[in-house]
């Protein structure tokens, strides 16, 4: 297939794997995956990438931990955690010298980072979710749509955005190409920024956060600030994040779901808060929109991350690192 289009998944975690395995089923696409997890990469190369749960697939594709070995690609799809965007792009940018790079990551600021490395960028948001249950095997928890649009400061050709959206859709990941993808992106950012840190700080599942009325009111306070920052940028949200929050709280949807940030905190992994509440706060500050509640939870989660560097109760030498 000399005319097949080459797509490289940058960061083949749970969400990246959903795209990689499904896209591998298309005849006109060659899928590559770059990831730093050697076991996962080895398993993919040996047995293919397997999805089970909401959808079943085994994708045959070539995975690597060696970014230098990547050939020139037509498209990149960045699906790392937001805090790894810069290092992933630094490693892989050479493969996209003539290509366009899309992101469907969480948070605000990923497109700007990617645009520091490549010329043509596609903004995106995706709603499906899953988790890696063993190397080479991902459980597909929730199906959902994806929205792609050109990143205006360094846009990809709209025809390329449409081609990619069509390929995702044909692969079983329904995707819309739109001129301005900021509305869905901010809806998801506001949803995540209002629910993730509250779950992480309280230890409660999404459903239990929502059934505590004063706590649910605090979540709405976070949502309102996010909406104000979106409005100041003249972004039209495609739907109300409140509806998404209430929908997710239903027992049959995600009542028992622990927010990914709560999972990160329980595992003492650095969170995406800088790109969620931090992103809302930074944009708000630039535009003169006050976001005291988002700023508060941003600093609290940063404090939680900081606490893992303490030796324990009343750890010594605390003032050496914290003073001044």
């Amino acid at each position: 297939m000399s005319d097949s289009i080459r797509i490289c998944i940058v960061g083949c975690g749970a969400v990246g794997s959903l795209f990689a395995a499904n896209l591998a089923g298309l005849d006109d696409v060659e899928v590559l995956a770059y990831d730093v997890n050697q076991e996962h990469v080895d398993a993919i190369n040996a047995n293919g990438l397997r999805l089970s749960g909401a959808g079943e697939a085994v994708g045959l594709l070539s995975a690597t931990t060696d970014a230098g070995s990547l050939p020139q690609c037509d498209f990149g799809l960045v699906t790392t955690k937001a805090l790894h965007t810069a290092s992933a792009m630094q490693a892989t940018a050479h493969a996209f010298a003539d290509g366009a790079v899309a992101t469907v990551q969480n948070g605000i600021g990923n497109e700007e980072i990617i645009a520091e490395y490549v010329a043509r960028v596609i903004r995106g948001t995706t709603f499906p979710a899953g988790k890696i249950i063993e190397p080479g095997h991902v459980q597909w928890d929730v199906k959902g749509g994806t929205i792609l649009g050109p990143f205006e400061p360094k846009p990809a050709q709209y025809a390329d955005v449409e081609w990619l959206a069509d390929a995702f859709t044909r692969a079983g990941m329904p995707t819309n190409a739109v001129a301005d993808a900021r509305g869905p992106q901010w809806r998801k950012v506001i949803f995540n920024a209002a629910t993730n840190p509250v779950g992480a700080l309280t230890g409660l599942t999404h459903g239990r956060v929502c059934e505590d009325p004063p706590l649910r009111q605090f979540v709405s306070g976070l949502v309102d600030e996010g909406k104000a920052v979106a409005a100041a940028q003249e972004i039209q949200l495609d739907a109300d994040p409140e509806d998404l929050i209430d929908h997710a709280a239903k027992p049959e949807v995600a009542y028992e779901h622990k927010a990914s940030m709560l999972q990160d905190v329980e595992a003492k992994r650095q969170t995406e808060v800088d790109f969620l509440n931090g992103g809302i706060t930074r944009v708000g500050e630039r535009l003169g929109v006050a976001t005291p509640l988002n700023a508060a939870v941003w600093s609290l989660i940063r404090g939680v991350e900081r606490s893992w560097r303490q030796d324990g109760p009343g750890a010594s030498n605390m003032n050496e690192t914290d003073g001044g």
Partner: protein
Amino acid sequence: MPKRVWVVGAGAIGSLIAGHLAQLSEVGVLVRRQEHADALNANGLRISGKSQLHAQVLAAVEPAQLPAPDLVIIATKAAQVAEASRLLASQAKDATVMTVQNGLGAETLVTSEGDWPVISGVTFMSGTRHGDTHVEYELDTPTWIGPYAAAPAERAMVTAVAELFVESGLRAEAFDDLLPVQWSKLIFNATVNTVSALTELPHVGLFARRGEVSDLGHLVHDLVEEGRRVAESAGVELHDDPWEMNALAVSRGETDEGDYAHVPSMLTDVRAHQHTEVDFISGSIVREAARCGVEAPLHAAMYRMVKAREASWNGPEDWRV
């Protein structure tokens, strides 16, 4: 000066008070556990750190086992003040009662159980219990006391209690109106303790740092300012600036072991999955804000998140199942 003093509750603060006051007064200690009382009666109470003392006290679990006091100092957690006050009804009905709990509202719990004259107390000292009969005196900061307006102790009694504290080796000062002091401490605790409980950070220098936008010092400062606005609308002018108290607390605190960061009691409770005192601390600010018709969104948020954290240790409410 009160000759016979009861201390109810022998946690860190109660033990520090009992051990010191026993240098000059006859001190009875009321505790919940018989083995705690037995240990105190057998071994006395040892204080290390800023004071080096070994005190003889008379400890009991029943008030009837102790001779009637002139002064009762309730040093339990806020949630146990009502229960502690009920214990005093017969044996200590002629005493003056003093509270030293964090937050607001302990005095009301006392006066709803009897018509004692009451001394409000706010203590800034801290210590660590190393067992039932040994407490380490860490921060030798003062205890401030004053007559409780709704059931005031006599001025002479307040002064005498302050003198007893000072002469037994503690720092203390008597005030005519303690509310400005209580509110300063209230705002300090509502800020530092909740931030500590939610981040699981001890009271470290980051609490006073305001370099990066995401540094915790900004939140601490905003919580202090919001608390100050609630105090002002309640007609209270603060005695101390809680932000300065915060900055001072993280800049000192050396013990003999070198650098030291205080672990606020609310963090200790969170680590142990125990109910915190947040209802008396942040809850007081939120209730006062509602009473005065002012907004306190940050304190309300901290309050709800700490309450939710407590709820997370238990399963969902039964009615859902």
